[in-house]
């Protein structure tokens, strides 16, 4: 066996799970009633968010600014697609991704100086600062009430959710494949090495700062694109869309699912989303159940659901060898 086979098998698993998620979501959409489609659109956008967030966590830091950076993409679409600029929506989404990356690049200068808890705190502060910008620059962002009448791409139509779901799935597929290939790439490996031990990595010649910044910026581009799509789907953006509740959902997905592998956070998100939908009648209990789940997982399976799955796989494989 050599180092290539392991990474390649991991990459195949990751690609397989991304395809399974796309096909599963698509199949569910085909058989389900129209009111489910809206929930599926949000699920797919959240999937883009958790996967891009996981790219950031591979460098060893858990950001709390992801959703605010997502807001940059959303506001970019809201502003650039409206008159007097009026650019095509999909172009705006792409620009939103780039702008989110640029904001992350600017933020990385101060926040990447911090590690662990301090990184969490400094990104929390940076995210709040961004959100305050959405509120305060009223002329541009519409203040607390936000911006409305954001169009959907022309070929999709404004009424049904299903066509938008196909678009979201296509974007998810492209971004997710890019993310898992990046994860398996040389740079992805170096980023995970820095995440595991920054001092050791630097002593071997890895530019830890550059690699951490790369992960932070690339993850943020994904968030910006998800934000742009969300703005276009909802037709409206407001500062409260990018607050702590959604951020908690992303972090919880990564904790519940695990972040060692790309499919972990997706599994976590599916878990959380199923719980959310099951308690649709009593939505006030949902955060309570999520919180309880996070505590149970951190206590009994600190590596998340993926560590449980891998444990079962190993046992199965061990039995097969015996």
């Amino acid at each position, binding site marked *: 066996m050599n180092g290539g086979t392991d990474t390649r098998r991991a990459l195949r698993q990751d690609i397989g799970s991304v395809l399974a998620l796309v096909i599963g979501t698509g199949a569910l959409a085909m058989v389900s009633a129209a009111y489910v489609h809206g929930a599926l659109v949000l699920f797919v956008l959240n999937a883009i968010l958790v996967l891009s967030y996981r790219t950031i966590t591979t460098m060893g830091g858990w950001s709390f600014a992801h959703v605010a950076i997502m807001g940059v993409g959303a506001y970019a679409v809201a502003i650039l697609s409206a008159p007097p600029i009026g650019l095509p929506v999909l172009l705006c989404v792409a620009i939103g991704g780039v702008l989110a990356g640029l904001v992350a690049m600017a933020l990385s200068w101060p926040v990447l100086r911090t590690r662990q808890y301090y990184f969490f705190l400094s990104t929390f502060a940076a995210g709040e600062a961004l959100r305050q910008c959405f509120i305060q620059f009223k002329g541009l962002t519409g203040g607390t009430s936000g911006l409305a009448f954001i169009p959907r791409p022309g070929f999709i139509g404004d009424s049904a959710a299903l066509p938008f779901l196909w678009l979201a799935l296509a974007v998810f597929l492209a971004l997710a494949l890019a993310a898992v290939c990046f994860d398996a790439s040389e740079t992805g490996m170096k980023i995970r090495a820095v995440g595991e031990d920054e001092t050791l990595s630097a002593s*071997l*010649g890895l530019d830890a700062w550059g690699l951490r910044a790369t992960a932070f910026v690339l993850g943020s581009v994904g968030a910006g694109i998800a934000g742009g799509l969300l703005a276009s789907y909802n037709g409206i953006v407001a500062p409260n869309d990018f607050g702590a509740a959604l951020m908690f959902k992303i972090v919880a997905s990564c904790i519940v699912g695990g972040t060692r592998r790309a499919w972990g956070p997706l599994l976590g998100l599916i878990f959380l989303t199923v719980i959310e939908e099951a308690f649709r009648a009593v939505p006030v209990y949902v955060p309570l159940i999520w919180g309880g789940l996070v505590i149970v997982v951190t206590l009994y399976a600190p590596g998340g659901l993926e560590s449980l799955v891998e444990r079962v796989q190993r046992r199965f494989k061990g039995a097969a060898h015996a």
Partner: protein
Amino acid sequence: MLEVRGLTKTFGSITAVDGIDMQVAAGAIHGLIGPNGSGKSTTMNLISGTYRPTAGQVLLNGAAIGGQPAFRVARMGVVRTFQLTRVYGQLSLLEAVRIGALAGNGAPWNPRLWRPFRHDHPATEAAHDALRRMGLGPHADRNAGSLPSGMRRILSIATALAASPRVLLLDEPLAGLNASEKAEVADRIQQLRQDGLTILLVEHDVRSIMRLSDRITVINFGKVIATGTPAEIGRNEAVITAYLGDRRPAHAAG
């Protein structure tokens, strides 16, 4: 090969390293010893770029490396290990050592962001080679986190080796190991020297360093108190005083 000139580091009002001069010859094992708190580790951190020197120079083949960040020092060919062993514990031995090989090959900004399927790569061969040289070849697929402390220490040296150093800095590679592990690690270090690698060895264990080193520099209170071959150092009055204080055994005093 590696030369240190007037190296000085002050922390506030404390001078931890005070004008150290040292020359490490190519292909030699150079020992750096001294009592606790004498400035060995600080010297190591100054050479490897962990600390920035207050004054003085570190030269590698005449090129200044002092004051550069650690990753640049490593890329210029001076790679270190750590006293508290550091390895990539979540990876297999091969993958862990491969990180060293990838790191050593990298340009300052590596444009190869996107090479997902290229894993039959020179780095993998370099990693296999480093594992073989350190006698870890048969364990390539084991998990690095599960190794006993002696093998863990050897793995950390293999990882540094894969980064293709011109000078290897070993920070107390024998500390905390049992006798058989010590002998094993010492053998591996000797083997590396026979392969032509230049090694700067910081060690607490005087007996081992006397046996391993070609030349030894002794420091105390941040200053060089003696330099020479192990035999010369063993006879040196200042060194004996530094290690034993003035409470020398009666026969030595008489």
